[in-house]
């Protein structure tokens, strides 16, 4: 301590105490001088500003970009909606105010109190929303009573209007109120609590394009906070316009053709990969989410065994069944022409070791070559050819066509599917591959699983002779002044090489399947255009044994959930393909009779549109 006191007593250290006190005083003097400058010298200026400073900044909601089909038909628009909110600082008696409001609004007191409590995390000068999307009458009633409701504001805000109701709902998606978690993310910088943002699909993926830039209003208010006049407006900027590749007439035709059935349908432009129609059934109304979905409605959608919220085009997994047979035939033609030239005598059954595999036609097709096998979908021919070929070559061909892997659709949620191989089976089950599994895979059953979008890409590739395009959904994005912001080019993923003759023979078989009397796809043939197509009937449970078969009296008795899925893939016109379609009707039983008509409806709509376009053009030329 002695040393301590000596150090402290040292004049230099003693000076330091004085120095510090002096420095503190000096800095405080500077603060005082600044105050003198603000409060005395500049008093007049600031006093004047304080008198005129009865202003407030109010946000101006911007409308979200509309969504159009490829020809400019409006699919998703905005409509005005009335929102009731409150400036908390102008409220003198919270309880009384909420009580009064609960009598005028279609909301009860506890709901309003919850909204109020939620608003406590906002800065005080920001209005707290209490009720969304109220009717015009309610809004007018609130305005009449504005004297008794100090601090209550009625705001007009644009909300989403889904014109097609459930049509293309899975593609478009829906909006929901921004969550606290989203607010803290960098992507949502500049968003405010109470804002609506895209939650799934296009509304979510293109949020940054669709959302508008909010404006601000500088308004003058009186002492009680009542609005007097507008001083300055920083206008809002509406969101950008999204033009889809979808064609509304095709979409509507597909929706109508489905009726009450579940399933999925997708149509592609074979030369660009553009999605012309995309249907997943059953569907839901995205408008329910726009006004805030009730919880029982939400639970109903979630629990529905037919999965209305799932986009089955991307995430429905189905055995491709007979629609897979084109791949087998092509792979055979590439391998050895002798394999493909094989003529099989189909007597309705195929023996391999102890196992017996049956053709769908009980009594068999008789002598069958490639064309007849495709036309009449003879299973036995494909069993034999598939077995000759082997699973590995089959798997390579299937993968080239985009099966068993995501096709790169520009929305998340695509399922992978399965194209089995020896290596795959080893990895999955750690068991060797059996010949019987090759037999089953040759007719697209067993382990093989695909999504409708994969089947559509496959069909488009068959139609255009080997060009695999990435499916596209956005055709163009324009800002509100019409400047083009995004204009995606078709994206060719790869080109598959096959002899020209191979493509031609597949086409002949597919044309025969639709247009010749014995063809399985007769139900989808068109009178004016030649369609090439293939049916498929995908077993949901294992094929029953012969004994059970004998007892079976008719299809009517099979419970819905055990009925097979119906598939149909097609392209048209056969000689100069433009459009490719893939349809799955869940538990629709027969590809030809259940899925065929839906494909037919889409193709009809497509060619009707083409004809009308041509007619219009003709008219234009005549004038």
């Amino acid at each position, binding site marked *: *301590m002695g040393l301590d006191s000596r150090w402290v007593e040292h004049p230099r250290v003693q000076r330091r105490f004085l120095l510090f006190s002096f420095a503190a005083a000096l800095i405080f003097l500077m603060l005082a001088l600044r105050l003198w400058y603000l409060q005395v010298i500049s*008093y007049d200026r600031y006093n004047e500003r304080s008198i005129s400073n009865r202003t407030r900044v109010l946000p101006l909601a911007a409308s979200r970009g509309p969504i159009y089909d490829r020809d400019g038909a409006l699919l998703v628009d905005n409509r005005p909606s009335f929102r009731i909110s409150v400036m908390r600082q102008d*409220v003198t008696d919270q309880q009384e105010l909420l009580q009064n409001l609960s009598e005028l609004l279609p909301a009860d007191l506890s709901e309003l109190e919850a909204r109020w409590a939620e608003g406590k995390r906002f800065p005080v000068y920001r209005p707290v929303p209490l009720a969304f999307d109220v009717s015009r009458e309610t809004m007018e009633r609130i305005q009449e009573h504005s004297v008794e409701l100090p601090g209550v504001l009625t705001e007009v805000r644009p909300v989403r209007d889904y014109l097609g109701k459930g049509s293309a709902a899975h593609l478009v998606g829906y909006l929901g109120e921004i969550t606290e978690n989203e607010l803290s993310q960098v992507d949502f910088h500049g968003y405010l609590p109470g804002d609506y943002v895209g939650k799934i699909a296009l509304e979510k993926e293109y949020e940054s394009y669709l959302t508008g830039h909010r404006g601000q209003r500088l308004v003058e208010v009186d002492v009680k906070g009542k609005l007097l006049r507008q001083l300055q407006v920083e206008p809002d900027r509406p969101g950008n316009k999204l033009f889809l590749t979808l064609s509304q007439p095709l979409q509507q035709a597909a929706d109508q053709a489905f009726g009450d059935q579940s399933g999925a349908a997708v149509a592609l432009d074979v030369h660009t990969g553009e999605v012309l129609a995309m249907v997943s059934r059953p569907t839901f109304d995205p408008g329910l989410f726009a006004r805030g979905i009730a919880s029982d409605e939400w639970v109903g959608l979630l629990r529905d065994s037919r999965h209305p919220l799932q986009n089955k085009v991307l995430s429905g997994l189905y055995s491709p069944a007979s629609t897979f047979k084109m791949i087998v035939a092509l792979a055979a033609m590439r391998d050895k022409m002798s394999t493909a030239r094989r003529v099989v005598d189909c007597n309705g059954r195929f023996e391999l070791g102890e196992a017996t595999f049956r053709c769908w036609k009980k009594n068999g097709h008789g002598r069958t070559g490639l064309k007849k096998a495709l036309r009449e979908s003879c299973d036995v021919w494909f069993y034999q050819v598939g077995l000759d070929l082997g699973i590995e070559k089959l798997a390579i061909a299937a993968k080239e066509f985009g099966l068993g892997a995501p096709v790169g659709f520009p929305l998340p949620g695509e399922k992978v599917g399965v194209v089995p191989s020896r290596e795959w089976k080893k990895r999955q089950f750690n068991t060797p591959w059996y010949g019987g599994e090759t037999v089953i895979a040759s007719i697209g059953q067993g382990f093989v699983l695909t999504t409708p979008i994969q089947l559509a890409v496959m069909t488009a590739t068959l139609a255009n002779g080997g060009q695999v395009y990435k499916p596209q959904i956005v055709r163009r994005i324009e800002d509100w002044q019409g400047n083009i912001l995004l204009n995606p080019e078709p994206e060719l993923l790869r080109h598959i090489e096959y002899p020209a003759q191979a493509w031609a023979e597949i086409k002949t078989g597919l044309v025969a399947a639709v247009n010749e009397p014995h063809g399985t796809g007769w139900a989808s043939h068109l009178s004016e255009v030649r369609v090439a197509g293939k049916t498929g009937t995908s077993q949901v449970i294992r094929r029953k044994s012969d004994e059970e078969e004998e007892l079976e009296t008719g299809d009517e008795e099979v419970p819905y959930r055990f009925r097979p899925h119906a598939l149909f893939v097609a392209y048209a016109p056969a000689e100069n393909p433009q459009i490719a379609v893939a349809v799955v009707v869940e538990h629709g039983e027969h590809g030809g009779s259940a899925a065929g008509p839906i494909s037919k409806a889409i193709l009809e709509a497509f060619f009707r549109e083409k004809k009308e376009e041509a007619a219009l053009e003709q008219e234009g030329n005549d004038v």
Partner: protein
Amino acid sequence: MFDRRLLTHFDGVLLLTVCLLAGVGIANLYSATSGWAFIATPVYLKQSIWLLGGVGMALLICCFDYRHLEHFAIHGYLVTIGLLLIVLLLGKTSMGATRWIHLGFFNLQPSEVIKIAMILLLARIFGRTAQPLGYSLFELWQAALLLILPVVLILKQPDLGTAMMLLFIAASMLLFAGLRPSTLFGLSALGISCAVGGWFFLHDYQKARIRTFLNPEQDPLGSGYHIIQSKIAVGSGGFSGKGFLDGTQSQLSFLPERHTDFAFSVFAEEWGFIGCVLLLLLYLFLIIWGIYIARRAADRFGMFLAIGVTSMIFWHIVVNLGMVIGLLPVVGVPLPLFSYGGTSMVTTMIGVGLLMSVSMRRFKF
């Protein structure tokens, strides 16, 4: 054995000054939030409860001999660093920054605790060895390392204000301990280059605040709003003020955060230049009294402890006032004893308790 001198040496002047300042602060909060019908417990009432708790805490701390704290300085420091790490890993995010640990009944903010922990640690380091000629750069590397660690952790949160406070406090204590002229020169050069280089590491919102500070009118509806509104409130107070409860700017709620960081502008509007100068004098008295306590301290540890606490309070005052009256950018530092907030009150009162503890044990035998 209880020493009777503890009672006779009790620092009533300090406690009285602190209570006087806090009392003015609470009256000011009453005015600032008088229009707020929507809060269940009025802000001024909550602040009064915090003050009572704070005074109790200060009295408890001053009964405890600060010299024991010297041994715990390192433990306290390590625990606080641990808390800072926890905050970074799983803290509660509020307005984009993670500063809190949620403890159920209240939110712990370790970046406040570290101020006290750092003061204790530096007091221990400087208290141990006297350097008659002042410290050289080499002798400081230990202290420098111990300082940089929490500063980096706090900048990560990110909380520029608190990190700056920590550096200011450490710099004040270091200046007091004494530096060789060459070291002083070197450190100043280092500080300036860090400040310039640091610009590139700032977050966008922090850069926006600094740009706005340089030219608030460029974005009057956005980030310049705080500064402009605050200056209007302060300036329109004039020489004698508009009178208690009669400030139009604050009452009309054009002033955001008027009960926390901008509480002083409410006071300035209602009490004018006269009131402000009186308040400044009261604060200045507190600071000089703190330095006086340091001068009379029984040992070097106590002296540095008093200097550290005093500089903590001093820099909070200067940075907050500088911000409110447009001399410094908006960094979100509360005015001690004046701004509403439990955390700030608790930190300040812990500091006051330590000051009283040093003051009471000034006898030297």
